[in-house]
């Protein structure tokens, strides 16, 4: 009796313990997290106050929908695809600016129309034609080692999570040929379907046997198998990738290393999300939304579960600093065909070409797009990055001459208003009472004029973990 009672108490308490493991984050925190995750950009002060003041119950969901469909959201998603598809003018992909543009435009169109994942992969893998005209054909154009084995291994990596190949799966891609045109760097990807080959049987990863018929595009047979709802791995890898894009850590981690020994950290969740992704007919936006509405995305960081804070990606940090200071880098493409200067205030997340870079982007670890691995992005904070933030004269001048800071200074009567405005701009929240006291103390102790205090506050917030991390 006593024992049953005890079990009952434990059973009753257990859900309570579970619930305390993750605490729902505040609207302020959610807003910043959602903007940075979906768009790679900070929310503006107006967006912050509007969201915090909004009283409707479903405002998080409404915001997610809005951001996923927004120009910024689509462009940021385009960057993620560009990373793993290695979109780059110069080597090793050597797509050249014309091809880079065609490829990016193609991806953007898929995302804008929310083309289902299976359809998008089919279009990508069954592409052919001129690399300047048919954007997706750059998939095949961008291989340095143009052997069917290498192409096949890369397809496995992208869509099945590792580079492991079966003995003859690569035959499905053995009809691909390239021919040059009179236009410089223009190339035609085409299929030699009449290639004299005996009737072929191909064995794939899961033991499936494909029969490649003469006079047909052998890729079609493969792609049908790959993108079929019954090929769960295809859906799982995408679900895991999306999870990784959101949290910086896959359910299977690294997301490029699917292997029987590399078990998912939460198999039930992976199964559930995959079921729903397949049921939605591979709706990528719905998948992202599902993850963004999850308890994990909506909770505070906690030692056991909860949201996992992550250092912002290079492009996001560089853009965030530019937004806060109001001073943007000028980006140029030095590949001379033609030499391109990007329009002023171009976000680095929108560059679309890994050949275009800056010393800041390099410093914070912009992906070089040399390989199709998610793990190529390294978001570990380093002493050199901190050195730049602490004492760079470039950054110092950008803060000192910041038109944004000048405006705040002119418009604000006192340190409290200044602090509030900078904090809203930089950290997407209002300054707390105790923070304002700290600023006042800093001003008094060091006998600084108000503008210098404003500079120090902006410097300090840019240096803070709260700024550098998505949390």
């Amino acid at each position, binding site marked *: 009796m006593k024992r049953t009672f005890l079990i009952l108490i434990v059973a009753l308490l257990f859900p309570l313990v579970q619930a305390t493991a993750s605490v729902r984050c505040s609207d302020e925190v959610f807003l910043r997290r959602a903007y940075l995750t979906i768009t790679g950009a900070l929310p503006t002060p107006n967006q912050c106050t509007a969201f915090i003041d909004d009283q409707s119950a479903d405002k998080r969901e409404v915001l997610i929908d809005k951001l996923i469909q927004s120009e910024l959201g689509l462009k940021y998603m385009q960057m993620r695809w560009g990373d793993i598809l290695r979109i780059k003018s110069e080597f090793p992909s050597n797509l050249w600016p014309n091809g880079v543009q065609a490829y990016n435009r193609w991806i953007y169109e898929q995302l804008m129309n929310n083309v289902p994942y299976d359809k998008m992969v089919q279009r990508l893998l069954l592409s052919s034609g001129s690399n300047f005209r048919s954007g997706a054909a750059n998939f095949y154009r961008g291989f*340095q080692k143009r052997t069917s084995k290498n192409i096949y291994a890369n397809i496995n990596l992208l869509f099945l999570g590792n*580079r492991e190949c079966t003995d003859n799966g690569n035959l499905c891609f053995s009809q691909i040929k390239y021919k040059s045109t009179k236009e410089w760097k223009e190339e035609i990807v085409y299929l030699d379907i009449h290639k004299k080959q005996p009737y072929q049987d191909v064995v794939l990863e899961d033991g499936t046997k494909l029969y490649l018929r003469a006079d047909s595009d052998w890729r079609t047979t493969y792609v049908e198998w790959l993108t079929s709802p019954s090929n769960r791995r295809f859906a799982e890898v995408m679900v895991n990738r999306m999870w990784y894009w959101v949290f910086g850590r896959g359910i299977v981690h690294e997301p490029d290393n699917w292997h029987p020994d590399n078990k998912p950290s939460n198999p039930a969740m992976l199964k559930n999300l995959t079921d729903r992704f397949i049921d939605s007919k591979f709706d990528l936006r719905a998948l992202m939304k599902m993850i963004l509405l999850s308890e994990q995305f909506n909770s505070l960081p906690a030692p056991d579960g909860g949201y996992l804070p992550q250092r912002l990606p290079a492009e996001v940090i560089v853009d965030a600093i530019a937004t806060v200071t109001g001073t943007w880098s000028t980006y140029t493409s030095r590949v001379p065909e033609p030499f391109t200067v990007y329009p002023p205030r171009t976000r680095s997340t929108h560059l679309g070409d890994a050949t275009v870079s800056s*010393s800041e982007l390099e410093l914070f670890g912009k992906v070089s797009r040399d390989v199709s691995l998610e793990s*190529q992005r390294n978001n570990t904070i*380093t*002493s050199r990055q901190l050195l730049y933030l602490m*004492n760079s004269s470039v950054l110092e001048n950008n803060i000192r001459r910041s038109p944004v800071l000048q405006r705040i200074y002119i418009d604000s009567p006192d340190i409290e208003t200044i602090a509030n405005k900078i904090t809203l701009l930089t950290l997407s929240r209002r300054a707390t009472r105790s923070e304002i006291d700290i600023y006042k103390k800093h001003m008094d102790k060091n006998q600084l004029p108000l503008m210098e205090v404003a500079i120090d506050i902006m410097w*300090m917030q840019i240096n*803070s973990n709260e700024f550098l991390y998505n949390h």
Partner: protein
Amino acid sequence: MRRIYLTIVLLVALCYGAYAQRAKSVILVYLDGGPAQTDTFDPKPEMGRNYHGNYKGVCQTNVEGVVIGEKLPLLATMADKYTLIRSLTHGSNAHETGHYAMITGDSSGGAVVYPSFGAVISYMMKDSYKGILPCYISVTSANSRFNEGGFLGNAYKSFDTGGKPESKEYEVEGVVNKHIDRKRMDSRMSLLRSFESLEMDKDVIDSLRDINMEFIWGESREIFDLNNEPDSVRQRYGKSRLGQSCLVARRLVEAGVPFVNVRTTGWDTHKKHFQKMNSMLPDLDRALSALISDLDSRGLLDSTIILCGGEFGRSPKVLWEAPWNGGRAHFGAAFSYLVAGGGFHGGKVLGATDKTGEKVAKRPVSPCDLIGTVYLLMGIDPYGTLPHVSEGELPILPSLLDSKKSHGLLYEIIDLKKPDNEK
């Protein structure tokens, strides 16, 4: 018995000699854009105006039989200190591929992107190098045309100093910030400490910030401060960007930095070639000769490799026609590098071009042969491997293993003997 013992000692000494580190540092004076070898280290005065252009004369150097361009009189006085390689070749006439070849030793077109040799040295010395300054420093910035770190990743890329060493105050990025003195910095740091509440990697970040404070306000600041040099020394190097950058390089090497990349731009002279060379060559002459003699007089030349050249050379034939009107085009078939110190011999010329300078006539040298020799002198096995994230261990210099691409390490001009087992 005694004889056997002696033989063993001798063998051990030989083996040790073969892999021991001869040089401690490398200074790469990189003439970005591609300098004209015929106007610098491989003049062709007898070829007529269509080749030598405005520079008909030459400088006889202090080594008999070795002549260099007429605009390099100071370097001509010290040819016993350096060797000229006149037969470099990679055949690439595009900046990005030429640059990639000269900086990585790999030929582009492979499936992986190789790291620059500065990054490789930085990687190889990651455990042995203990200095407070970064292992690989670019004055003032590396060429960002390709990913410097290659497949080794960001950690081994160069530290770019930025700033203007030729100005009154050389603002080294992250180190010297003229608006902020120590007191202001301390007050900012205490502001940051009292503000920071979130836990994210806090301990790591705090300790890295402490290290940075030491870096900013400690010895490194003094090393970068050219005002610590007498004005006569600064004058000797020339008060130009290149001259003062070379002086910075000497100070860094003195402080033990293993790799310094002095990169100077403007050498891509398709047009107005001779007008530009009239000022650029004396600048180079002053800076490079000062660097070599200064290192030598400080006893550092023996342990410091100096390399000078670009991603390729320039066409030996002058393009007089419009739109070039006296320019020189990209030329990767045959060009020159100057090498000195750190185990490289002085007073020699390796390889030669033909009469016009358009073909290598003797002892071709591939980028991998030069870089492999630098590795050898730095105590790095040029036939060793590097880890790649997905491909496993890859050869440090793949081209060196390919007899079509490599013409052999440059044993002719270094102190080390070629091991018998090496082909």
